[in-house]
Structure formats: structure tokens, C-alpha cells
């Protein structure tokens, strides 16, 4: 898998490059801002672009704007946004508008290299990955909390994993149950929440996000 990194902090992007290299991910190049990133994608045609949301010149949402721009130009390019702080509203909006091949993680997660590599792989496949904190935040909102009340604690856990974009196998591993149990939980959740059953992990994320965003 080939990636490019855009982050204004030298310390961070070099650390990330080192880490990914050790984990067997090829980092083609790194950039310090959105314009540099455009150029890198043009030249290297990577599978995924890892982008810091806050970049110069205004340090607000340059990374997100760069992501939208790249998505229009390169529909197949995977986008993984990194953020230093939780900005769930912005992340959820981006996910709803551009769900295919989209990921949003807090920067702390990238130290967990297995998870980072898995997220990169999923985004490269066209799937969706949301940070657990973002999902927890969305599910913690009052409107969502009221609707989740009917679910058992285990079902709520499965719902959260589903929103993060986890596959059935990953959920089974996380929850230490077998695949069949996970499947029955999922169908039960879809029934209780009046959602159409979905097999594809990526479509499931969409359904859950749409439901959370109601």
C-alpha cells in the first residue's frame, strides 16, 4: 500500500513516516500544507492520503478542504483525516457527504500501529472508518441516546463498532464472541431501529451514520 502524508508539524510527519515504514507501508512523500499535498497526489498517485485537518495558513479546516478537493479530482483515492482534537460535527458531515474511502481518526490513535494499518487498508478498499471517540460522541447525543435505549448493552457495543466501520470478523475479535453471535446482534439492531438489513460493512456504516445523524 502506498500513502502520502500532509501535516505541518515536521516532528509528527517524520514520526509517522518512520512508524508506517516499520509497519510495511510505503510512504511516497510528505507535505507541509494542502497545496503541497495536491502536487504529491498528482505525482505519486497513492492509494491513501493521510491529512492533518489543521494546516497553514489559517490552521482551521485546510486539511478538510484539501480532502474535498482531492475527492472531486481523484474519486478512487482513499482519504484518512487526522485531527488533534475531537471535531465530531465536521467529521460526521464529511463522512455523510463523502463516505466511500473515507476515514477520520484522532491523532492519538496512530500510535496503535495495527489499528492504523487496518484503517488505511479499509479506506483504501473504499470503506469508512470513524474514530471511536467520534462515534461515542454521536451516540452520546441526547437524540441518539433516547433511541439507543431499546438496545441491550451488548447490542449498543456492536452498534458503536458498526459505526466505526469494523467488519463482522473484527467485531467478533473485539467482543470475543463468534461471527454468528455478531450477525444475530446486527440483525436484532436493524430490526429494533427500523433499518433495512445490510450485508456490506461500508453500507452498514452509512445506515448507522444516517440514523445517528437524524
Amino acid at each position, binding site marked *: 500500500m502506498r500513502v502520502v502524508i500532509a501535516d505541518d508539524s515536521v*516532528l*509528527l510527519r517524520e*514520526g509517522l513516516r518512520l*512508524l508506517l515504514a516499520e509497519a510495511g507501508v510505503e510512504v511516497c512523500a510528505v507535505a507541509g500544507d494542502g497545496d503541497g499535498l495536491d502536487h504529491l497526489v498528482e505525482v505519486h498517485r497513492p492509494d491513501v492520503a493521510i491529512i492533518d485537518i489543521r494546516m497553514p495558513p489559517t490552521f482551521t479546516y485546510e486539511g478538510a478542504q484539501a480532502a474535498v478537493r482531492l475527492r472531486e479530482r481523484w474519486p478512487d483515492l482513499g482519504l484518512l483525516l487526522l485531527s*488533534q*482534537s475531537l471535531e465530531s460535527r465536521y467529521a460526521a458531515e464529511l463522512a455523510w457527504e463523502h463516505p466511500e474511502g473515507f476515514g477520520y481518526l484522532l491523532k492519538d490513535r496512530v500510535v496503535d500501529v495495527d489499528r492504523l494499518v487496518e484503517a488505511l487498508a479499509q479506506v483504501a478498499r473504499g470503506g469508512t472508518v470513524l474514530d471511536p471517540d467520534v462515534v461515542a460522541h454521536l451516540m452520546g447525543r441526547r437524540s441518539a441516546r433516547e433511541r439507543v435505549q431499546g438496545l441491550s448493552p451488548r447490542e449498543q457495543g456492536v452498534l458503536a463498532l458498526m459505526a466505526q466501520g469494523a467488519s463482522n470478523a473484527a467485531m467478533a475479535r473485539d467482543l470475543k464472541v463468534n461471527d454468528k453471535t455478531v450477525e444475530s446482534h446486527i440483525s436484532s439492531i436493524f430490526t429494533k431501529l427500523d433499518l433495512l438489513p445490510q450485508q456490506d460493512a461500508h453500507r452498514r456504516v452509512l445506515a448507522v451514520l444516517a440514523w445517528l445523524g437524524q
Partner: protein
Amino acid sequence: MVLTDRRLVALGRADLRDPGALIYVVAIVSATVVGSILVARQPENPAGWCFAGLGASMTLSGALDSYALIGAVADPGSLPYADVAAVLGDASFIPWLVLVALALHLTPTGRWLTPRWGRAALGTVVAAVVWWVAKCLSGTPLDPPFTEVSNPLAVRQLAAAILGVRGVAGLLTGLGLLVAGASLLVRFRRARGTERRQLRWLALVVIPLPVFVGLSFVGASTGRPLLVIVSTSGFVALIPIAAGFAIGRYHLYDVDRLLGRATTYVLLTAGVLVVYVAGVLVINEFLQGWAASDRATGSAAVAAVAVAVAAPARHRVQDLVDRRFGRRRYAALAVVRAHARQPDPPATDESVLRRALGDDTLTIAYWIGARRVWVTAAGRDPDGQGPASEGRATVEATRHGHPVARISFAATRCETDLVETVGAEALALLENTGLRAALALELVEVQASRARIAHAQQQERQRIERDLHDGAQQRLLALAMRLQAALVNGDASRLRAAARSGVEEAQATVRELRELANGLHPVALASGGLAAAVDDLASRMPGLVEFDVPDRRYSEATETTAWFIVCEAVANALKHAPGAPVRISIDQVDERMLIRVRDEGPGTADPDGNGLRGLADRAAASGGWLIVRSSPGGTEIEAVLPCAS
């Protein structure tokens, strides 16, 4: 004219001397003088040219008359074309009427009231021209004393038609003159403020216009030339004078007041006389038996009574006269007095004066002497209220020569004199509101300072957040990634190297965090007070820092504020005078802490800059104050904070 007079006497025809010559001369002089003054002062105003033209045409007409009188009547045949001069002179009053009509239309602005009135004026001019031509061509006998002169220009074949045309055109011209008078009255009715005053006197002259025109026609038709001359010339003489006052805006208001005062005293004197005479008559009638000395006493008593009556009567009479002569002034003062007697809570000075003066754009600014600023009643900046704004005029109400309030009003709606009078009447009200405005100003400033402090705090929080994100958090994250990378790699030497650099990185991060925390509230300040904190600060500064700080503790709030001021002042010195020596001194005088930070830089600090403004706010918020003295020798920041010892 005097020459003509002499010549007539010399020719033995004194009976031909013009009985109305004097008033005629007055008319010429008034029109010529007023016309030339107006033309000189306002050459763009056609009304002035009308008067100048009137003077010229009257002079010309006088010359024609004199020429004809001598050449055709007194000494026939002595002068060529005397009969033509007689005809032209006979018709020469027509241009006067036209010029008077135009002047009435155009005073005081120099423009028609509306285009419609303009068309009426042009119609009058056309009618007058026709009339003049018809009069010259008609064969009827001329006015006395030219009754014997036969008209050489007469077209006898068309006599009847010409006579008809002449009659109609003459009537139309007279009508045009009345229309011109009406135009002036309409203008007067619509006018406000100064323009109304400008027109008042002219309007007074114009009101009897129909009488003059009527008299003139009666005089002409009954063959009384004296009546024609007196009515026409008298009227023509008055108009330029009144118009001159109007256009020149000559002490309009004072004329009004003088007339009012004069009338009051005339009425009062008459009243006192009546009382006195009546009293004396009564004494003489009923006290016949009294001795002469008693009568004298009685007369004195009557005089005293008359005087006693006069004093209160003066107010009544003055009141009545004021009502007649200065309606607006009277009504305006009445509004202000009523409010002063019984204030109506929702009414403000502004609303009262607006009502009194009939100007709803009127605004008032109050002078806060201690601060040397103008403010509104709410203590705000009275922007756009300066004397410079277009169409606005201002009047300052003062007490003993010190400004109290500034009234700004629309110049077209109120007269300056009237506003001055009303302002003087409302002076006590204005002073009262001025005191409240001073309090309001302080409140406004406190609110603004509070808002600035809140904003500064917000910015400070953002700066800290940025420092944490970009500094410590990034470092720790990078450290974690590098350690993780070494772990993933698994090689023992890589792991050792990662651990070694990791320890260094962690220590650097701890230092960074400590500095960040220290900037917020230095440990030295908390443990050792201001003396320790300033010592610590001085040791970290690149240039020479001298300090003299008492080694004692104050309340935490005082120490924190003092520390903040010292830090910012030193930072300011570093910014404006890098490397220059800085001197910090803290003193205590009674229950006040005196902080001085002085640098020997170029003295370019801006007291209204963000940093120093924030300092002043901080000092003010804790009940103290701060001043910045910047001179080429350096900048000194001095703050005084209250401190209980």
C-alpha cells in the same frame, strides 16, 4: 430731476413741477441701492438684478419725463423727439411692474417656487410687453401734463383694436402682479426657519399689494396722477427695502424682538398714563375739600399705584406682545418651561427641545469638562454631530463661559437665535442631564474595559491551547510514534536508540510544559512573592534589568495583577527597545502600590496599542490606574494599585 425743477421755474412753468417727485426719488434710490448691494453680494441671484433693473428703468423713465416735460410742454420745439419721449415716458411704468413681479417671484432663493409659478411669471412678462407696445401705439391722450402732446407713433387705423388689446394686456399684467404676490405668500406659508424669517417682512409689504394695485388703477382711471405716483412709487419703494432685508438676512430675529419690546413699552406707557390720569381725576373730583398739600400726597400715591400696577402689567403685556410678534419663540419657551416645572419622565432633553423647536433631527451633546469630551446623554460618542455635517448648525449652551451642552439642529428648520434662547432657558435641565451623562460615560467605559478584558482572556486561552497543541502534545505524540516504530522493528539496537532519544524528548517536553505553566502563574511568584518573581524574570532577560522590589507579600490578587503589569511592561520594553536597560521598581505608599517600569529606548510605545491598553484595563479593573509616558529618552509605565497592608 432737480435740474428739471430749476428749468421749469426758469421757464415760468412752476405749475408743472411734479408733486410726487420726492417719493419717486426715494423709490429710485431704494431700488438702485438694494439692487446694487444684492448684485454685488450674490451676483447669481436674479432677484438682485431685478431690483437693479427696476432702479435703472425708473431713472430712465424719470429722464424721459423730464426731457418730454421741457421739450414738449414747457418749451415746445426746444428739444428733438420730445413727443416720442413723452409717449415712451408715459408707458415707462410698465417695466417697473414686470420687474417687481419677477422680484416677488424670485425672492429670496433666486428660483421659481415651482416651474408652474415660473410659467405664470413668463406670462406676466409677455402680457406686459404687449401692453407696453399697445400703449405706445394707441392714440388716446397721454396722462397729464402731456395731455396736449399728440402721439407720433399712434396707428390710428387700428385704434379700436389696439385699445382692446391694451386693456386686456393691462388687466393681465395687473393680475400677474397679484399672482407674483400670491407666489410670495405661498412661499412664506411653506417656508420654515430662516427662510420664513427672510420672507416675513416682504410678506407684510406684499399683503397690501391689491390695495396698491387697486389705488393705482383708480388713480389712472379718475385722472389723479398724484394718487398713481404715490401708490405705485410708494409700493415700489417699499419692496426693494423689505427684499433687501430678506435676502441679506439682516438681523431678522433682532428686528422681530425690537419691534416686540417697542410695542410693549408703548402699550405700557399708555396704560400707566391712563391709570395716572384717571387717579388724578378721581382725586380732584371727590376730594375737593382737601388741602393742596394733601392733593400733592394724593398725586404721589396715585403715581405709586400706577407704577405698582405697571410692574405686573409689564409681564402680561410682554406676554401678549410676544405671543403676537414671536409666536414660535413664545411656544418654544412655553414647552421648555412646562417641562422644567413638571418633568414628564419618558421625555428627555432631546425630545423636549425637538418638540419645542419642531426639529425631530435635533440632537444634544454634553460637555464633560473633567474628561474634555462631548458625549450623548447615554455617555456615548456623539458621532456625526459635529458642526461640520452638511445642513446642520450647532449652538453651545454655556454657563459663565463654560460649555454645558451642544445643540445640533437642521439649519433649515430652526433659527440659530431661537435655539440659543431655548438653550439658555433649558440650561438647568441640560446641566442636570450633563451630570448624569458623566456617570453614564464612566459606566460605558467600564463596560468597554470589561469587554476588552474578557476578549483578552479569550485570546490568552486560545494562545495557551495553541501552545499545548503545537508544543507538548506534538512532541509526546512524535515520541510515542518513534517508540512504537522501534517496537514494530524489534531490533535491540534500534530499541535502545529509541529509548535514549525518547528520554531526552520526554525531558524537553517536561521543560516546555513547565515554562508554559510558569508563564501562567510563576512558581517563584507563588512561593517567594513579587521580589522572587522579578528576580527570576530579570535573570532570564537578555539585556540589563535593574530592579528594586520590597521583599514582602501582598494579597494574591494584588501580586498577580502587579506581576502581569511588570511582565507586559518588560515585554513591551523588549519589543520597542531591544537590548536597552530596563528598570523595575515597586514601592508602597500608604495603601497603594506604585509600580514603575522604565526603559531607555526610543520612546515609541503607543499607549492605545493592544498590550498597554490591556494593562490599563487590568489596573482599572483592580481599582487602580496606569499611565504611559513616552518621550525620546525612553518609556515609563507607571501603575498604581490599591493594596491593603
